[in-house]
């Protein structure tokens, strides 16, 4: 007693490669382990990898997929994919036997025995087999995607708003040398004074002439703080110069305001005469809750009484942690949702007390694009009574994805892993807004509407490739576009006025697409503002001071 004091990830591996052939590429990366290259090495390793990959994918899905798929069924899909890629008639022995193997090594050896009997030209291609496999899995289990761990690392950088690079997008069309199409504001390239249109001749003295984009990207990517030497010219045919650039962290806004400008650089109050704020959610990231704090301080300083949250977006598909942080910051205590995962007891997630925009009413805008984190946040806002939802119903079914690295392989797999049960037992998915708004220009089945926030326009400003991918996925899934080129061309048109893009198939049998920039997608937003003004017509008794000093 002597005390002293006191990713949404691609539907298939194909996407990884697709990235490299698409027109715009962001050159970004974290520390690249040698083996994590997407480039497929020698045929031997290729074949070995097929067995190991299939085994690892099956293992992971069996353990973690929300639908609890049976191992035998997964192997059946794998073998079918393999047979499809090989010429089935020529199988030397029954690969079905391989299914009975006890471990990855035996399985790989079993497949190898089959491969050994074949000539080099008849060997299955790793990417094609895995692509086929994940495609078949996707029809059974919902989207299953494989990305390189390298790409997964980049996705995680975006997700945490800690992207390392020089901040450029690369365009290669019709050029012998790549061109920096856009320059991220505040990034190393921007700080070095580079402008869009800069031609890149060499990276660390290696010529980029007719070099594949993914290779150029690989050269440009590297760990934070390391330097690279670029040979560039401001315009084609201008004098070349050599500059040294450090790779650095580039931050991107995840909240936007009026005219889709980053909220940090635009007004939170679109109309000076109204005490109504507008906060648009882009791709969710770990910085979003922090950005919301800044928005809250400005909303208070502006004396706002109501804030409209535009949740007509989505992604990343495995952004549950970020969605939890955001919902927690917006909702003043109580249950957010209950999570159901394989081999785990249901887990009810409660918000801490206190919330941003206290004393202000909230209206959340939703539509068919409201998916993933945006959808669960909207649901929690609705279930807690914190916000009124305005817009159109979302088809999001409450299943979130998870990206899990495959053990000892340079790939990660993303799949449906978490079922989100809504806080109110009388409410189920899909999300239905209290204030339903009908589209004055109703969409047909053969078209896809892309809200301004998810369009390529946005992508150009913010290199969130995963979001770009997810738009492409939608194009693929809704319009069933076969070729990557179609999807890209659908996204190509300049859309300077932040209009909705309506992508329509020319005819049912054609993969061709027509793109119609649409001026009036903001009818949901208009409905939101109408309701907001109506609400503010009634006086509110609670007045919270806008600052501590007042």
């Amino acid at each position: 007693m002597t005390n002293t004091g006191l990713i949404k990830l691609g539907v298939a591996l194909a996407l990884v490669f697709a990235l490299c052939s698409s027109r715009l590429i962001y050159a970004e990366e974290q520390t690249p382990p040698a083996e994590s290259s997407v480039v497929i090495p020698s045929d031997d390793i290729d074949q070995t990898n097929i067995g190991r990959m299939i085994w690892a994918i099956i293992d992971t899905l069996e353990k973690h997929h929300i639908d609890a798929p049976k191992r035998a069924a997964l192997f059946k899909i794998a073998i079918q994919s393999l047979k499809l890629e090989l010429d089935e008639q020529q199988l030397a022995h029954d690969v079905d036997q391989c299914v009975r193997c006890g471990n990855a090594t035996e399985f790989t050896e079993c497949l190898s025995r089959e491969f050994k009997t074949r000539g080099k030209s008849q060997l299955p291609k790793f990417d094609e087999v895995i692509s086929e496999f994940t495609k078949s899995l996707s029809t059974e289990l919902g989207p299953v995607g494989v990305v390189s761990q390298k790409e997964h690392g980049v996705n995680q950088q975006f997700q945490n708003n800690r992207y390392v690079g020089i901040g450029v997008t690369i365009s290669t069309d019709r050029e012998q040398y790549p061109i920096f199409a856009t320059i991220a504001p505040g990034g190393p390239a921007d700080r070095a004074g580079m402008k869009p249109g800069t031609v890149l001749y060499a990276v660390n003295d290696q010529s980029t002439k007719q070099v594949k984009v993914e290779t150029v990207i690989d050269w440009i990517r590297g760990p934070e703080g390391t330097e690279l030497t670029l040979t560039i010219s401001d315009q084609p045919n201008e004098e070349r110069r050599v500059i040294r650039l450090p790779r650095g962290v580039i931050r991107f806004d995840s909240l936007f305001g009026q005219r889709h400008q980053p909220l940090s650089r635009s007004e939170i109050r679109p109309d000076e005469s109204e005490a109504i704020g507008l906060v648009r959610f882009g791709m969710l990231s770990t910085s979003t809750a922090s950005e919301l704090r800044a928005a809250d301080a400005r909303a208070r300083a502006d004396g706002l009484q109501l804030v409209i949250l535009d949740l007509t977006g989505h992604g990343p598909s495995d952004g549950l942690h970020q969605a939890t942080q955001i919902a927690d910051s917006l909702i003043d205590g109580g249950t957010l949702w209950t999570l159901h995962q394989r081999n785990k007891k249901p887990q009810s997630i409660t918000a801490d007390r206190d919330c941003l925009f206290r004393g202000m009413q909230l209206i959340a805008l939703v539509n068919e694009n409201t998916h993933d984190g945006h959808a669960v946040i909207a649901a929690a806002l609705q279930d807690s009574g914190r916000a009124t939802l305005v817009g159109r119903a979302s088809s999001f079914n409450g299943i979130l994805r998870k990206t899990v690295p495959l053990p000892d392989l340079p790939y990660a797999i993303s799949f449906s892993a978490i079922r989100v049960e809504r806080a109110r037992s009388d409410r189920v998915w899909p999300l239905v807004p209290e204030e339903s708004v009908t589209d004055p220009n109703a969409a047909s089945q053969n078209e896809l509407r892309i809200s301004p926030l998810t369009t390529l326009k946005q992508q150009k400003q913010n290199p969130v490739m995963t979001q770009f991918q997810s738009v492409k996925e939608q194009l693929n899934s809704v319009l069933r576009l076969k070729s990557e080129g179609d999807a890209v061309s659908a996204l190509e048109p300049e859309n300077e006025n932040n209009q909705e893009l309506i992508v329509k198939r020319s005819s049912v049998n054609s993969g061709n697409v027509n793109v119609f920039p649409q001026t009036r997608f903001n009818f949901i937003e208009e409905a939101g503002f109408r309701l907001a003004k109506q609400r503010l017509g009634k006086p509110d008794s609670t007045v919270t001071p806008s600052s501590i000093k007042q």
Partner: protein
Amino acid sequence: MIRLTSQSVTVLVVVVVFCNGLLSIVRADQNAAQPSRRPIAIVALNDDRHLLVANQGSGSISVVDLETNAVVHEATIGRSLSDLILMNDPQYVLATDEENHELIAIHATPKELKVERRLKVPAYPVNIAIDRETQLAYVASLWSKTISVVDLQAPERGSSDLSSVIRHHIELPFSPREQLLITASDQARWDPERTHLTAKLVVADAFGSKLAVIDPVQGQVESIRELPAHAIRQLRLHPSKPRLLLTHQMLSRLNHTTYDDIHWGGLMANGLRSLSTHDVLTPNADLLEQSVLEYIGGPGQGAADPAGFVMTSSGTVGVAISGTNEFIVDDGSNRYSNRIRTGQLPTAVTLSADESTAYITNTLEDSIMVVSMTEPLRHRTISLGALPQLTAKDRGERLFHDASLSHDRWLSCASCHVDGHSNGLLNDNSSDESFDTPKRILTLRGVNDTPPYAWNGRFETLRDQITHSVRSTMQGGELTGQQIDDLEAYIRSLPPPPSVGTKNSTDAELGSALFRRLACQTCHTPPTYTSEKRVDVGIHDEQDATQFNPPSLRGVSQNAPYFHDGRAKRLEDVFREQKHPVDHKLSEEQLRNLIEYLKSL
């Protein structure tokens, strides 16, 4: 004359026990080197020229002359002073001594410091509030969890009769530190139509989230509510508005101890909050209904451990940031970005009478900082005396409070282990080798002889735990060997939280027998009341881990809430609700005995 309540009798007994213990410390300390002063509280005298500084390390009060920038007088008043406040008569101050457990009235002039009176109060007094209208003083006693209402006008009748002096002992279910009196005239000023107003005392949890409102005249607790807050280091009234201001931290159990969650301010946030006094004074009101929170620090520039603060009539705020050794001045225009470097561990802040200047105690540097509130770049530091050579423990203490050990200075060790103890909250770190499994932060007091560490006992040595906590939980850099040694020396020096019970009561003796009969000592083995094993007591975490290292029961009454997830709010709940360790049927009497025994540990 108000009669002594039975509660106060218990507390007085405790005081006696503490006094016996103190004798041994006196002897031990005679051989110790001159301790550092550790200025902890500060008042400005009405002459606009002198400051009085209470020193925790030396038990002295230093008189600082602001014209000569020097100490003009210093007198030892007690063993370890914890607070200092001006009385009605500006020539008198009240101080608390948290080792001698005294409230001390001192006649204080720039030339002389003379103890007028000493009053035994419940053990570990740490804060004084005063009602100048009623001449009542309120003393918060930390580990005794008691507020004493002291009548400053009562005549002295010898130390054995305190009944006329201490009007009430008000027990709280948490350890109090900061107090704020909202007087009848304060309330009348805000709401002139209300009559029959009485003063209310707001008391904040020293470690965790609770805020109590007490009617000090009736000696009644009117409300105990929780805030999304911990480490509430100062309460003040807004100079002109009916608002209560407080500095505190926020720890989110939904965020992980990852680089990114720390970087964006998700895991730990630091701020200044304003509450409506109407809500504070209305027992059933939601404290947060009209709350405003201003975040201090942001990505790239954390501001760990906001401590003392002041606000001028024009609304300029000055906040001491203990974890970053800074003083931040904000007139509403700069979002707390105007930072001035202070000495080590700035704690208390007070304003000059004309509000032009702030005075700050640099607790671990034995100095006072004088800062202009209008031109913060104009500042000076006044030494209170030579700083003794730092020992490993001293260096460790500095590191313990140093947020530069963490990523971007968002948190220090002390942010969760407030005063070496615990904020009682849940934190989702990787010490248990998983995320999404938030666990209660354990006290560091008494960990010297209780290996292994972490809830799952994965760290064999304290060194391993320290290294992991700084590297992973705080996302800091690698510590040097010397830094680990120093931190270890400091943490090992922290004694267990003191108990408030006595082993000698019949209840405690029966409880002790019951403890043995129930074989509690199998896991909670004396003398440390813990063991190195990992045990399944029928509860699991979110990842279905069931094997936990039993926490030590020394000072267990100070360690609420209980279990890895804080599921038992009180000791009683451990047995009554959670049926720990297994489904034992305890009678009410047995339960009482067992709890009395546990309180004595």
